């Protein structure tokens, strides 16, 4: 049941939406295509579905080349961002649609549709019309409608994008549980990193029609392949550092970059990437390997406290994430002086500066 999109290129006029992209969704896995708007992820999904056709490249299902087959013949469920429910049909008829066009017998249709409606706890809504449902309910119907004809592959195009946060979280969890139970090969498109990480077995990070990195959520977050991936996945601070005697220096402060990761540039400069949770704040100068700054803003909501510090010597605004306990023990407030010290940092080849 694995899907392979190989060397796919797609142009819209002069705009290159996909540039020689290869993506694989192994059998039974849930793969997320993650990237900003315009990265080509939706185009790739539609090409896999057969709703668009590539200018070059192939789509393979198992070992069959299905590139030239129409969407109708591919038997892949597709869930649209804005649901695309049939507005003039009842919920029951919506879910039954895929079965009716396949001429299933009436009793089998009835039992399958009822089973699916029960699965999403909407079995009492069968006679209603889509306009009478809430956004979350509509999306659940869209999901089971795609699942009804027992497809081998499910494709989801930003399925939760149009919903509010709480409903989104519920549906995400539902999707993950469903996948754990039924193991249907699934590919879904999202621009929300948190969503991709929560739901997917494997993440494909895309940008400007190219694949930047493929891996499990942990792999991609801990070991970003380049600056784009690091910056896209969570907030990141970028420092322009000097390379001197194999050390990476920002003024007098050494940034602890991993051994062997230093790339000597012609003008001795490098961009260094530090995640907010890889910086620490101290009330005093400590061992000296720190930058002095002023607290500009504190966002205490959530599991981390986000502090924005202005490092005046370099005119840099730095984002630091602290645990609530650490923040409490520091007892710093807006306008006060703090010292920023780096715990670890990353450096990439010059090509990938953003």
């Amino acid at each position, binding site marked *: 049941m694995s899907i392979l999109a190989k060397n796919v290129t797609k142009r819209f006029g002069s705009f290159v939406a996909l540039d020689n992209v290869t993506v694989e969704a192994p059998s039974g896995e849930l793969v997320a295509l993650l990237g900003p708007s315009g990265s080509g992820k939706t185009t790739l999904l539609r090409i896999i*579905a*057969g*709703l668009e056709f590539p200018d070059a490249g192939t789509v393979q299902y198992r070992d069959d080349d299905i590139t030239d087959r*129409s*969407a*109708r013949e591919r*038997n*892949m*469920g*597709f869930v*649209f961002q*804005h*649901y*695309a*429910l*049939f*507005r*003039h049909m009842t919920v029951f008829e919506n879910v039954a*649609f*895929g079965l009716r*066009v*396949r001429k299933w017998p009436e009793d089998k249709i009835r039992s399958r549709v009822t089973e699916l409606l029960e699965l999403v706890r909407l079995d009492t809504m069968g006679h209603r019309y*889509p*306009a009478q449902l809430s*956004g979350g309910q*509509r999306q659940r119907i869209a999901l089971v*409608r*795609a699942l*009804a*004809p027992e497809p081998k592959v499910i494709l989801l195009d930003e399925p939760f994008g*149009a919903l509010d946060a709480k409903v989104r979280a519920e549906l995400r969890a539902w999707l993950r549980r469903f996948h754990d139970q039924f193991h249907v090969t699934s590919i879904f498109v999202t621009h929300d990193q948190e969503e991709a990480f929560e739901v997917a077995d494997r993440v494909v990070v895309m940008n400007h029609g190219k694949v930047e990195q493929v891996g499990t959520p942990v792999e991609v977050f801990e070991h970003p392949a380049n600056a784009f991936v690091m910056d896209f996945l969570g907030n990141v601070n970028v420092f322009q550092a000097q390379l001197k005697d194999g050390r990476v220096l920002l003024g007098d402060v050494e940034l602890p970059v991993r051994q062997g990761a230093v790339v000597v540039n012609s003008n001795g400069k490098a961009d260094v990437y530090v995640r907010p949770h890889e910086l620490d704040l101290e009330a005093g100068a400590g061992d000296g390997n720190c930058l002095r700054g002023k607290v500009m803003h504190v966002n205490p909501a959530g599991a981390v406290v986000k502090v924005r510090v202005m490092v005046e010597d370099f005119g840099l605004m730095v984002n630091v994430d602290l645990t609530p306990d650490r923040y409490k023990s520091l007892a710093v407030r807006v306008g006060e002086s703090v010292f920023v010290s780096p715990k670890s940092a990353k450096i990439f080849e010059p090509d990938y500066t953003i």
Partner: protein
Amino acid sequence: MGSLTTVPRAAKAEDPAWIRWTLTAVAVLLLTVLVIVPVVSVFVEAFADGWTAYWDNLLGDPDTRSAMLLTAVVAPVAVACNVAFGVAAAWAIARFHFRGRTTLVTVIDLPFSVSPVVVGLMFVLLFGMQGFFGPWLRAHGVQILFTPIALILATTFVTVPFVAREMIPVMEAIGPDEELAALSLGANGWQIFVRVTLPNVKWGLIYGVLLCNARAMGEFGAVYVVGGRIAGETNTMPLQVDMLFQGFNSPAAFAIASVLTLLGLVTLALKTWVEGRKKDLTQSHEDAKVES
């Protein structure tokens, strides 16, 4: 705590009463003179000689009966042709970008800009004895001009825009997503069209059909030229009205005219009803889009 001062109510941002009354009166007057009086007078004239004469005029004269039959055939056939063409063209234009798309849209609008008499002339140039197809037609013993076929052709041509122009914005507003969803669920082209597209566009289609039919029934200029005005054979109702009027048979002319006017009023009523249904549907589409 200071004392409360009453603020005088802000002057309403509205024209003074006398302007409103004057403009309304002018509008009503124009409407009465240009529309209501003529319509009423048609019926007055039609019944000038009494009820019996009225029915006699309509049903007693074989030429008049044939005119009514002809209109009852020509108009629906023209509408049917244009429904087929209009739906197909609207679907192609709304869903695809192809070379010549803009040209097609312009061509659809062409009948609007051409005088119906010129349309008639065009058919004469094509199908007349000295026309482009003349020799070929004569060789095969086929006659087009001065037969009901010509009436149908001319009427169809003149009413081409009505269905198509109505369907294009409707199809664009609905969007392709539902159709793509149906495709991904395994429906073939015909199933998508019948089960998904048609139910969504039905009010726009009905509206287009109403307009097309109204125009087809009232067509005069083009059929005047291509039909040859042969009483009892190629006179539609409007042509028969003209013929009777020219023959100084006013009551008969007005009798037929009253039927046409009545059909027009029925069309107006239906049109208003369908417009209401269309607006409800469009509103629910907009609401759905906003909500999602």
